[in-house]
């Protein structure tokens, strides 16, 4: 009887629990935007928000938030974690400013809580565990490629103190990203790839593209407007750029089915929001250049990255969407073929290359372009260069419009052989409509023969440099409520209405180091040793001594006598 009462009590309690506001929520979103070059970028964002304090011990019940990551956060006292795995390079010049920028290869940066005593150890353990979770070679992160930037990477979420000693940053430009990294990433999604937008994530299409980048961002955010307590936010993002030229035989029309070979039939049942945004903003005078089918349910106007943009919105949770047909296949057609040789270059873009020839010295040059017609702005440049390129910091020159440009802030940490890389951070003012050339010379070190990679003649990678800037926008941007605005607009906070934050990565560099001939080291060693052993002694003899012929002398009387005695004894003479 008692048991039955208890059971009844429990049953009564259930509605009470349900009435409580949901402690975790999922929003999913797909943004399809045609790029200036005519290619198509698809950006997926899945945001899981959990109103729970993960740092406190004893959190054991996970619903939407992946347990693997949650435990990681509490075990290593992580405050913020940003991991991106990218195959390819975002070509800012022809594709414009990306919503979420990532360098080629793997990038990991983590802010730890102030309570962490040994940050380096936590960082090492964390990267090893992440390596296991994402099947990536993050275990190659060690002290030779880890840096602590002082200014470039600020916490993106809620943070009181920003003591950069709790920050670690590393890039592995050589990392190759493929299906094996995508699968564990998909598994972290609440609906996996069974329902919702994630059904489009099929590896054979995602890797048949010009650019593929997947990322995980974890940060604490305000729970509500008052911001008295914090919640945890996990953003999983994936950006793919499809080459419309190669697939469409010159035509730039696309549809969901054509690019993903799938259509959408439902939203993820666990999601509280599931939307598709299609960028239909027109460039100035000719509007109505393109046509989207089916007709969008609503149109959202926003100012993103200094531009006014118009988006057609499809809400998958709206039952009206699937009334007409059972599946949603968004299509876009261009009414007129658009061809223009000159693309409008984005306000900030950069290029980096190695100049010079030969295997002794070289020069790393970075060109930073500010194409803003009248506004100058500062940019924060972060360079991480491996120790085997010995930078000569006195050769650092920054030239803008033929004149020397003095950085207003400079932080340089020289490398230590086999222990840590060079770190160079500079705040450089970019005048309006200018190109700034930053060059620094280096010498190529000769490595120990066991330190070469198995393919030494391929070259060694130098990680991309990072440019962070608040770019003044040409139009006025209005503040939007973060909860209402599309997800893609809300990761980086904009400081005010007149500028927006941009982070850019340049290309990674491939540098050849002087390489011995590894084809037959054993033979070479044997031959060299033999030649040295045989020749050295004799040549040394010849060079340092003179030889004279000495006539044998008869010897003294005593010796003669002694010899006679020895002869009698039968002993050989002296």
């Amino acid at each position, binding site marked *: 009887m008692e048991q039955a009462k208890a059971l009844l009590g429990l049953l009564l309690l259930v509605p009470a629990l349900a009435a409580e506001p949901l402690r975790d929520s999922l929003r999913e979103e797909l943004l399809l935007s045609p790029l200036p070059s005519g290619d198509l970028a698809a950006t997926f964002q899945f945001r899981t928000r959990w109103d729970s304090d993960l740092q406190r011990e004893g959190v054991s019940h996970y619903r939407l938030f992946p347990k693997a990551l949650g435990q990681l956060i509490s075990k290593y006292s992580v405050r913020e974690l940003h991991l991106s795995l990218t*195959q390819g390079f975002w070509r800012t010049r022809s594709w414009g400013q990306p919503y979420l920028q990532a360098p080629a290869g793997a990038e990991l940066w983590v802010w730890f809580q102030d309570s962490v005593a040994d940050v380096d150890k936590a960082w090492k353990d964390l990267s090893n565990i992440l390596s296991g979770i994402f099947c990536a070679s993050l275990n190659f992160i060690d002290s030779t490629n880890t840096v602590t930037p002082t200014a470039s990477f600020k916490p993106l979420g809620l943070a009181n103190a920003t003591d950069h000693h709790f920050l670690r940053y590393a890039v592995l430009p050589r990392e190759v990203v493929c299906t094996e990294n995508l699968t564990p990433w998909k598994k972290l999604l609440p609906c996996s790839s069974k329902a919702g937008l994630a059904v489009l994530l099929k590896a054979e299409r995602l890797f048949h593209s010009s650019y593929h980048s997947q990322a995980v961002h974890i940060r604490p955010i305000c729970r509500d407007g008052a911001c008295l307590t914090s919640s945890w936010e996990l953003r999983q993002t994936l950006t793919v750029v499809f080459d419309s030229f*190669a697939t469409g035989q*010159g035509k730039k029309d696309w549809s969901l089915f054509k690019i993903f070979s799938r259509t959408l039939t439902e939203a993820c049942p666990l999601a509280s929001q599931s939307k598709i945004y299609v960028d239909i903003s027109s460039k100035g005078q000719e509007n109505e250049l393109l046509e989207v089918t089916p007709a969008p349910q609503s149109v959202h106007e926003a100012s993103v990255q200094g531009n006014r943009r118009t988006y057609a919105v499809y809400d998958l949770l709206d039952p009206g969407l699937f009334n007409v047909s059972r599946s949603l296949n968004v299509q876009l057609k261009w009414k007129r073929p658009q061809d223009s040789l000159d693309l409008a270059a984005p306000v900030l873009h950069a290029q980096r290359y190695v100049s010079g020839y030969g295997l002794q010295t070289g020069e790393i040059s970075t060109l930073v372009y500010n194409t803003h017609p009248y506004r100058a702005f500062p940019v924060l440049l972060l360079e991480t260069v491996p120790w085997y390129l010995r930078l000569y910091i006195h050769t650092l020159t920054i030239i803008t419009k033929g004149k020397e440009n003095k950085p207003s802030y400079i932080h340089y940490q020289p490398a230590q052989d086999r222990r840590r890389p060079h770190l160079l951070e500079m705040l450089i003012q970019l005048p309006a409509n200018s190109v700034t050339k930053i060059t620094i010379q280096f010498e190529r070190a000769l490595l120990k023969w066991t330190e070469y990679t198995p393919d030494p003649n391929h070259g060694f990678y130098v990680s991309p440099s990072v440019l962070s800037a608040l770019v003044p926008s040409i139009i006025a941007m209005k503040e939007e409520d973060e909860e209402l605005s599309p997800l893609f607009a809300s990761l980086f906070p904009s400081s005010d209405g007149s500028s927006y934050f941009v982070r850019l990565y340049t290309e990674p560099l*491939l540098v050849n180091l002087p390489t011995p001939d590894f084809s037959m080291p054993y033979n070479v060693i044997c031959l060299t040793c033999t030649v040295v052993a045989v020749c050295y002694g004799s040549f040394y003899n010849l060079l340092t001594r003179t*030889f004279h012929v000495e006539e044998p002398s008869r010897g003294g009387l005593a010796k003669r006598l002694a010899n006679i005695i020895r002869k009698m004894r039968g002993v050989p003479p002296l």
Partner: protein
Amino acid sequence: MGLLSDPYRRRALARLLLRLNTPLCALSFAAGLGWFLGLAFQPCTLRAYMSENAMGSTMVEERFAAAPRALAYARQFAGHKKAARGMPVAWLEKTMWNLGLEVYKQTFSRTLPFPDELRERYMVKGTNVYGILRAPRAASTESLVLSVPCSEGQHNNQAVGLMLALASYFRGQIYWAKDIIFLVNEHDLIGMEAWLEAYHDVNVTDVLSSGMLGRAGAIQAAISLELSSDVITSFDVAVEGLNGQLPNLDLVNLFYAFCQKSGLLCTIQGKLQRSDWDSLPAYLHSLQTMLLMVLKQGSGRPQGDHGLFLRYHIEAITVHGINSFRQHKYDMGTVGKTLEGMFRKLNNLLERLHQSYFFYLLPSLSRFVSIGVYMPAFGFLILILVLKALDLWMKLSRCDVDPAEQPCDGDPVGPVASEEPKPSLLTLVPPLLICHATGLALYSLPILGLRMATRHFPVSESEAVVLTAIAIYVAGLALPHNTHRVLTGAGSDRGWMMLKLLSLLYLAMQLGCIALVNFSLGFLLAVTLVPVAAVVQPTGPKPLQAVLLVLVTPAATLLFCIFLYQELVECPITVLEGWQQFLQAIAEGLLDHHLYGSIVFPLVALFVYPCWLLLWNVLFWK
């Protein structure tokens, strides 16, 4: 080595060396020359093989069906080139853009030190247009280059057409791992040099060029294409680059392998390979091929646009389509397939080409002589100088040790007058200085004195430069009559022996260094200079020696090489034509140095010629 520490044996050895010096030298020369000639004999060479595993056999079928398109592009290009009277920049940009490439252009200008009369250019202004095919999902760290020179007249139109057709085919493929740069360069080598310098952001020669917007990382390999007819009968490959640098042998092997695969005839130095090898004509054929390579490499001139890539450690070859009177012709499809196959193999490369040889000679495309095999030939020649130097050294030191003894027993030179005051090493300084000063004048005056020469003499600028150079060269011959009067110990036997010892060692060192950089040049100089350098001395028949010495001077060697080359390519020339070509070659040598940084002219003017002058001084010591 113990042989040398034992005084008795040492003395015996020294005596042997002294007595048998001349026969040993003769033997060594014969061995060196014989060895070199033997290199072309097939059993002495190695069969070419692909060392790079990444370029090994794959089950790939080359496909290229855009042959009509290539010809259409070629016709359009020819039309636009005619209309634009030069490079049709706008048309190229638009066409490449429509093919889906990232298009960039680079303008450059260069004023030559003196007008190039052969190609009629002085102030050169041009534009290079290039399109970059971005490899999907690659971070632009590596790239390949296909370059085509935009030449004057009707040349190379088909090459541009084929390149564009290849670009459009490549653009549709998804397997590229490296970016591919399609480059059309104006003013052949000058444009190429300007492009390479801008790409690597260096300024080696004084080309003024606009900066470069588009880059694609480290270039791994390059192929330069020259094609002037719709159909071809064979492909010729040029390997010799600037300063005699050669591309990795694997690249040549790759070309050969693909020609074999698609059944194309391929030649090197314009010579088709013979099927037999054991007859005299077959041997002579491969000897001709090899000698042509030696002459071309020795000249230090790039034999095609590829030659300039080599400085930047980019392996490159020039492929030249030839349309001769042979019956069987190949169309663009076959040519395109061959190039497509080569690019796909290069695309597979994981590392830079490094597995195979960088130093080799090619008696035919399927056979090669590696550095280990050909170096002994040169070693034998250098041995002569060492033997002679040892001989002189021992004669000199013997006189030092025992001046009271019979003066330097039994040497054929005659007794050394030991009662004369011993000249110190200091006496060698004036001839050395004067000879090098002459060399310096030969290097710098032709360009510096250009204005003055044209003002005072009725000659063109180019003639002025060449004639000044020849005048200084010849004036150097008058030096000994002026120098040895200055010397205190002049006229003594010790004096000339010391000078000869010095110049022999100096020559040996120079030739050794040259042979390491450019074997052919070293060998050509050695085979002419060494025997005469060994023989020359102030006693004996002076006029004969003087004639011999003049015959082996570097300038005379150049003249002989021109005649030899013309013989080998089977179009003999008269003496007058030879002289014309000789003058032209000097002007070209100077231009190559100033335009591309070729080191042959400064090397000869600053080092080999002064060394030869030292020997001339030895001859006229008394």
